[in-house]
């Protein structure tokens, strides 16, 4: 108890040091254009009090837990393992039925579309980071390539969404290979920082190449998708979706259609990934994550294997980008900042590297949670970052840390996270 109090007092003292200037004095524009200071020492005291209580409770809780149940984390792991077998089908069923569930309005569906977009991006990046072990911090570049590819192709050539979607994917995959080539020899954190640089280069080019991309103003008036050629229009005129199917024209038709579109795209990503994982290419990705040198000794061409992972991951990013463009009808470089890459990577890592279910859960929790805090506006990024740190500290292996073997002579048993390598590439 004394020790806990002492720790809490130290923490409060540190908090005082941290906050006394940055919180205690706010810089505000005063008269004559200069800055003036406004004091808020009450807030500092409040924060220090919070830190003190928080640290005290944590110390007490730790002392109690150490005394009572040392094996709590393993129990949690077993629980997620048991939940896993029915959670995936349950999530899928919910996703399929979501537009028809009671109480699901337009805003809920919009949120669903947003979450599914991130699920898809997470699954796409999971190929690169989770399976192949290549740490990519510039994934948003491919999302941007896909979005701009659709927007520009539609604007300049009048191509429809259904022609542009595969083109956007192919273009993104092409960029994936192009950016993948120079970084083949790089490892770990270096790879992360170079991919980050690539992502930023693409963004800076988007901002400055005004003639093509509209610069910071972006591109607006991007055509909305049609129901395989039948437009969604409010007038209910001849040849529109509502008229052909004899429905009352409603704005929700398009939202429901977009929802199922992104659901299909996400499930396609998942299907391809799951299938490849059980085949030589996917196994080679995982082997590369485990040990590159051993792969070379076994005659695996690392160049081809790495590039295929980059290309495939980028392709799904491109699909998601094209979807994003058609859904928003407006894109600008603002949407493709580094923070997006960080969020997608966080989803993959928090979900548990290589685990499809974990990524889906992490996307729901992070993006759904993020949207719930919408009214807190500027606080929510702060909380988001804090949650990222907290989850890593509490569960560094992510939510689902186990690995399922891809083939077995007898029964497939889960492999514990401790044995699985995180990839040095």
């Amino acid at each position, binding site marked *: 108890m004394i020790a806990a109090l002492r720790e809490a007092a130290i923490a409060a003292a540190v908090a005082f040091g*941290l906050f006394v200037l940055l919180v205690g004095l706010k810089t505000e524009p005063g008269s004559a254009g200069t800055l003036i200071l406004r004091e808020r020492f009450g807030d500092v005291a409040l924060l220090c009090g919070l830190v003190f209580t928080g640290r005290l409770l944590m110390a007490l809780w730790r002392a109690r837990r150490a005394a009572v149940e040392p094996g709590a984390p393993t129990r949690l792991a077993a629980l997620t393992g048991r939940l896993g077998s029915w959670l995936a089908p349950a999530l899928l069923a919910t996703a399929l039925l979501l537009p028809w569930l009671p109480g699901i309005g337009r805003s809920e569906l919009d949120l669903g579309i947003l979450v599914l977009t991130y699920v898809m991006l997470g699954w796409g990046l999971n190929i690169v980071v989770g399976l192949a072990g290549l740490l990519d911090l510039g994934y948003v570049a491919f999302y941007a390539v896909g979005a701009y590819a659709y927007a520009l192709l539609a604007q300049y050539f009048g191509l429809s969404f259904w022609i542009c979607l595969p083109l956007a994917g192919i273009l993104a995959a092409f960029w994936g290979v192009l950016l993948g080539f120079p970084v083949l020899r790089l490892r770990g954190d270096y790879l992360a920082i170079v991919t980050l640089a690539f992502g930023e280069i693409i963004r*800076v080019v988007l*901002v400055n190449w005004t003639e093509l991309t509209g610069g910071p103003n972006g591109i607006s008036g991007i055509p909305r998708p049609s129901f395989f050629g039948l437009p969604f229009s409010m007038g209910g005129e001849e040849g529109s979706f509502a008229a052909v199917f004899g429905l009352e024209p409603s704005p929700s038709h398009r939202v429901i259609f977009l929802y199922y579109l992104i659901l299909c795209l996400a499930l396609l990503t998942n299907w391809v990934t799951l299938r490849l994982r059980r085949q030589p290419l996917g196994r080679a990705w995982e082997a590369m994550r485990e040990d590159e*040198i051993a792969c070379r000794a076994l005659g695996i061409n690392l160049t081809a294997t790495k590039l295929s992972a980059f290309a495939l991951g980028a392709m799904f990013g491109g699909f998601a980008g094209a979807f994003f463009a058609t859904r928003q009808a407006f894109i600008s470089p603002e949407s493709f900042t580094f923070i997006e890459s960080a969020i997608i990577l966080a989803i993959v890592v928090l979900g548990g590297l290589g685990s499809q279910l974990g990524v889906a859960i992490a996307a729901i929790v992070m993006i759904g949670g993020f949207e719930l805090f919408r009214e807190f506006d500027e606080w929510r990024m702060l909380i988001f970052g804090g949650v990222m740190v907290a989850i890593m500290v509490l569960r560094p292996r992510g939510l689902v840390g186990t690995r399922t073997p891809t083939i077995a002579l007898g029964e497939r048993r889960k492999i514990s996270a401790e044995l699985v390598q995180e990839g040095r590439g």
Partner: protein
Amino acid sequence: MAYALQQLINGVSLGMIYGLIAVGYTMVYGIIGMINFAHGDIFMIGAFVSLIALLLLSAGGLMEGPAAILLVLVISVAITGLYGWAVERVAYRPLRGSFRLAPLISAIGISIVLQNFVQVAQGARPKPSEAVISGGIELMREGDFTVQLTYVQILIIALTLAVLAIFTVLVTRTRLGRAMRACEQDRRMASLLGIDTDRTISLTFVIGAALASVAGTMYLLRYGVIDFYIGFLAGVKAFTAAVLGGIGSLPGAVLGGLLIGLIETFWSAYFSVQYKDVAAFSILVITLIFLPTGLLGRQEVEKV
């Protein structure tokens, strides 16, 4: 000629700022082998603390001129160093020995926290501040173009050299420096020999943060406008500097900083201001691909 000379002066003073931040990256990478992603934001914190301290001193009318700047530096170093310590304690230490991606994600999380903390606490708008030191020495005149070495630039160069001198003595001559170098070589062995590695790593973060805060103060004095987002770009560029100089090499970090500062300044002056960030990023990519050990880094032979 005069124009080029002016760019040289500007490039060197900018490069000094990058160099000071780069030392923090290189030190942390050397000792725990991770990129301290939040280091750029620590620099930003340093700049904000300096701004507030400066306003506080001038509002009280207590001090002005060089004495005020010295006091601002002391305050900024102390508080920013505390941030460095707290970041390591909260986000990195619990993950030591954990798998490699965890600290990286945690670092990105902390970077988001620091940026948004400052945004919430101080507002999102850029903060302009009045010039504390103005004027300079006119070095040469060519037509109607004058080459000027401002007092701020002199201060930046002198201060950086002084700080680096102190820092070099710290690393090469003191017990703490020896402990740091020992941890860099082999952390487990160092701890077996009775070095408190946790404390050494903490102090590494504090020193790195202190250097970044000096850079923050100088950035504030030189450019006069700061916002909560300056840490990201400055961080990436300083990291580029560290890589260019050879990560793990302290003189390399300073050299890399100078080169990045010069390249960026000359690129903006002669080619295109819009694409100046692309120049820095491209150097990063090219260095890592063709010269992965940097200019002064050690060659590593792949162990099989």
